[in-house]
């Protein structure tokens, strides 16, 4: 498009090696990323462009009595100031599942940082200063911040008059969704228990903290539409929410994925998309919006904080008798993905264990806290933290090795889940625990050198707080289960367009999908699949956009499975057409064209016995073959609203961790020495990327364990730490060695037998670290993150 610089480009990758699936091929976007040329959404530039800025509420809950924009509009360099009254159509809300989120506040704000007004100006600082001149008269309202205040008799309703599809079955209008899972009879089964342990756990609110801030460029088009370049996880989901608010048909909102600087769930919901388009359409000029880090903390939903109550029983030989649990997730002011998070938390509340008698309930609240939604692990993370703490507690009560207790109750292929669904693919839970336990331990007193203590290897680091005095080692284990793909009956399909043609005498494949590459390496894998299926070396990956069918979300560990499956499926269709051309052209020369199983390999048509029948170049000649097909995995079902029964999930992913920590027990400082992981990945399509995902996911779990939490003031519901100065994520000094053991047990239902892998390591990492700190200190530690004062009691 004319005038725009740094638009996303084709990624063309040749290869001298086979480089099909199973090879650790390198990223096709790697060179662009190391030279600074890769076009991230915040790098977009257009001549004559304006800068957009969002004015956000400074209070968590208030009625807006008035908004005065006159001074802002009068400022030189300002082109537009928009409020709720300027929205162009009757559609003024958006949302992933429930359209409860105002594009701009309509007379009321429900959380700190809610968008109230937009400014477009010729310089970002001009826009910020103009926004500061907008006068808003807030009349503050009492805040709802937890279950008690949300369900109190006189509780203010976050969304009075709800008409969404969950409104009819929830016990209170400030509860977004409730999902019980009832199977067997937990009360009866409890009578068989020799030991019962209970626990109450608190999981802190986590931020995705992707490094690339929310950003994009909206360019008004001559046809009255708009071209939007943006970083997102799902272009078509965005489009479905954007177009009605703008009053445009979807084909006039042309979206292109710009470079995405990480996502982790935080880009499932809209951020600047509608705002940028509104300003561009109003001013007739291109508008760029880039959040700074402060705004980013308000610009996306977070991982739900949660309170979890658990009761486990076991016989004295360590067999689980029953589970009762209640999980309360704080959804914040708007629904976002809360209903699906509830579905995951409840259906996976039991963990990777066999328990026949369960009584489970999960709910998500509407409160005035920051909205929460998707983040890597999606409801399964909070549950895993609690059930793994319980397993340790139970092992202690039984005087049993905690790994052995887990192995005795580990689910396996054929196990019936509490939802009544059969696990019909490998579930090597006991084996993963065995493997992670078998890894060699880091040496004791690993800080000791010939020249004395290396303080960098000790808790406190260069602060030089100890040379080993008061330092105690602890070791902890955890294992988890995560579902792969969208569950509960969602039509979770993807689309791939694949073309094959001859360019410069070489057969070349082009793959076009709308898959959001957010760093996970989907573009690498698509090229590998095309090579494997089509026997080509050179593959071009076209930029993701809305000119091709939906790929679904880069979420739920699903893209290699689902869009990978779609690319494979479309490649197979292309291959069949190529072979058909070959049969027509050359079929009379060799009987194998009619009788043998034919493949495309090394640029040739070959029989399954390896005999070469023709060059692909000769088969295709000047012609090209192109198909665009949708592809679906096995369908799932909704969970019954009363009993939670139903075949709700597609596939499962399992990981186990062993954490080794050293704790300065006097100062309450923790150093994680090693965080080993064993994970079943079904089939590693790209082993290098698989290990990278496992290490990255593990580190996000580490962050929750010892440092990460969005702190919300319980009195005002305001966020206290919206910066990287106050919200800490692990640095390279905080992150230990992460040895990884990859197991590949094929799932026969999935393409190539693969398993979605991105999320599972984020689950068990946190409880393993907590377990290790408990082992070192003897403390109960029921809250994330563990802070020094929790260890010293000060």
């Amino acid at each position, binding site marked *: 498009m004319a005038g725009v610089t740094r638009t996303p480009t084709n990624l063309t990758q040749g290869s001298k090696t086979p480089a099909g699936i199973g090879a650790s091929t390198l990223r096709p976007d790697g060179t662009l990323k190391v030279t600074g040329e890769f076009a991230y959404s915040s790098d977009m530039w257009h001549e004559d462009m304006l800068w957009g800025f969002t004015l956000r509420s400074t209070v968590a809950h208030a009625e807006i009595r008035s908004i005065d924009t006159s001074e802002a509009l009068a400022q030189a360099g300002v082109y537009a100031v928009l409020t709720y009254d300027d929205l162009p159509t009757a559609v003024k809300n958006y949302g992933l599942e429930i359209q409860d989120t105002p594009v701009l506040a309509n007379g009321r704000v429900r959380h700190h940082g809610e968008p109230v007004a937009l400014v477009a100006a010729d310089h970002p600082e001009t826009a910020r200063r103009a926004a500061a001149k907008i006068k808003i008269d807030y009349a503050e309202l009492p805040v709802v911040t937890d279950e008690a205040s949300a369900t109190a008799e006189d509780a203010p309703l976050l969304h009075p008059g709800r008409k969404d599809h969950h409104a009819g079955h929830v016990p209170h209008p400030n509860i977004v969704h409730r999902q019980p899972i009832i199977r067997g009879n937990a009360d009866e089964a409890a009578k068989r228990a020799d030991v019962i342990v209970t626990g109450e756990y608190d999981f802190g609110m986590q931020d995705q903290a992707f490094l690339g801030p929310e950003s994009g460029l909206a360019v008004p088009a001559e046809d009255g539409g708009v071209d939007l370049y943006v970083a997102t996880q799902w272009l078509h989901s965005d489009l479905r929410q954007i177009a009605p608010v703008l009053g445009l048909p979807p084909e006039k909102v042309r979206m292109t994925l710009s470079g995405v600087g990480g996502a982790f769930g935080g880009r499932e919901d809209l951020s600047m998309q509608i705002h940028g388009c509104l300003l561009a359409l109003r001013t007739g000029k291109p508008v760029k919006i880039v959040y700074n880090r402060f705004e980013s903390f308000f610009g996306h939903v977070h991982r739900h904080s949660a309170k979890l109550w658990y009761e486990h029983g076991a016989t004295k030989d360590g067999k689980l008798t029953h589970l009762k649990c209640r999980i309360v997730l704080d959804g914040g002011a708007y629904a976002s993905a809360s209903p699906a998070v509830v579905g995951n938390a409840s259906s996976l509340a039991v963990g990777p264990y066999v328990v026949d008698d369960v009584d489970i309930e999960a709910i998500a609240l509407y409160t005035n806290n920051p909205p929460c939604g998707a983040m890597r692990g999606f409801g399964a993370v909070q549950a895993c933290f609690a059930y793994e703490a319980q397993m340790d507690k139970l092992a202690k009560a039984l005087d049993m090795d905690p790994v052995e207790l887990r192995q005795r109750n580990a689910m396996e292929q054929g196990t019936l889940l509490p939802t009544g669904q059969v696990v019909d693919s490998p579930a090597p839970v006991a084996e993963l625990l065995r493997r992670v336990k078998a890894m060699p331990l880091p040496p004791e007193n690993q800080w000791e050198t010939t020249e004395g203590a290396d303080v960098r290897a000790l808790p406190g680091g260069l602060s030089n707080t100890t040379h080993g005095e008061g330092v105690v080692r602890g070791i902890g284990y955890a294992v988890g289960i995560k579902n792969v793909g969208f569950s509960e009956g969602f039509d979770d399909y993807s689309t791939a367009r694949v073309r094959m043609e001859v360019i410069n005498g070489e057969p070349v494949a082009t793959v076009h999908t709308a898959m959001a590459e957010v760093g996970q390496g989907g573009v690498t894998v698509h090229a590998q699949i095309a090579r494997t299926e089509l026997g080509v070396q050179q593959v071009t990956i076209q930029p993701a956009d809305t000119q091709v069918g939906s790929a679904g979300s880069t979420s739920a560990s699903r893209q290699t499975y689902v869009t990978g499956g779609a690319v494979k499926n479309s490649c197979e269709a292309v291959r069949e057409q190529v072979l058909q051309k070959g049969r027509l052209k050359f079929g009379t020369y060799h009987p194998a064209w009619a009788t043998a199983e034919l493949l495309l390999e090394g640029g040739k048509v070959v029989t399954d016995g390896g005999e070469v029948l023709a060059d692909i170049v000769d088969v295709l000649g000047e012609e090209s073959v192109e198909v665009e097909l949708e592809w679906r995995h096995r369908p799932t079902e909704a969970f019954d609203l009363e009993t939670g029964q139903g075949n709700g999930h597609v596939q499962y992913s399992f990981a186990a961790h062993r954490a080794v920590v050293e704790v300065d027990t006097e100062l309450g400082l923790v150093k994680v020495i090693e965080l080993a992981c064993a994970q079943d990945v079904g089939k590693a399509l790209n082993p290098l990327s698989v*290990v990278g995902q496992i290490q990255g996911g593990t580190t996000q779990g580490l962050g929750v364990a010892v440092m990460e939490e969005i702190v919300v003031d319980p009195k005002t519901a305001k966020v206290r730490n919206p910066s990287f100065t106050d919200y800490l994520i692990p640095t390279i000094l905080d992150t230990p060695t992460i040895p990884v053991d990859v197991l590949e047990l094929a799932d026969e239902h999935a393409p190539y037998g693969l398993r979605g892998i991105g999320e599972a390591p984020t689950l068990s990492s946190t409880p393993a670290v907590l377990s290790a700190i408990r082992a070192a200190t003897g403390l109960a530690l029921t809250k994330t993150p563990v802070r020094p004062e929790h260890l010293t009691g000060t």
Partner: protein
Amino acid sequence: MRVKFTVNGREQTADDVWEGESLLYVLRERMGLPGSKNACEQGECGSCTVRLDGVPVCSCLVAAGQVEGREVVTVEGLADFARQRAEHGGCGAGVCGGKGTTLDEAKGWAAKPTGTGDSQAGEQGTSPHTALSPIQQAFIDAGAVQCGFCTPGLLVAADELLERNNQPSDADIREALSGNLCRCTGYEKILDAVRLAAARGESETAGTGA
């Protein structure tokens, strides 16, 4: 105000710079060099790391006016900077305080666009981008790049580490890169990349008998 300084060996001038603008903003929005990244704009994440007269700095914390008359190297110029250093010894472009190339010599080079925008990184060991610096190639080869947003800052910081310490221990690497946040990789493959670049540098040195 007008600000004039040398970026990647080429003199650059920016007009109408507001006094509050950072070096990062001027590089990204006025000079067409968005390789330096804007992940936090408060000096915590290191994604905007550049060399300022040889010293690694967070360009978001440097006021543009402070850079008047000085020399900046960004990720876009890293490959040429490393090549200059390899050819002339010591620091490239004379930015480490007197040693190495003179300013006049340095003016002859600048970051060059790669043309088509297509990438060929998958050619293991045979990348046509021979212009990449050793640390850039090592980041690709080791799988240290996922979303890539932290990568430019890490490359500048890691290159500076290897310049002063060509055989860093793991503790040295962790110390040198502790100001650079990465949210994707868990840092393991970033450590691998620095180790790889150091080992390759070592084997080259050994091979030439230098």
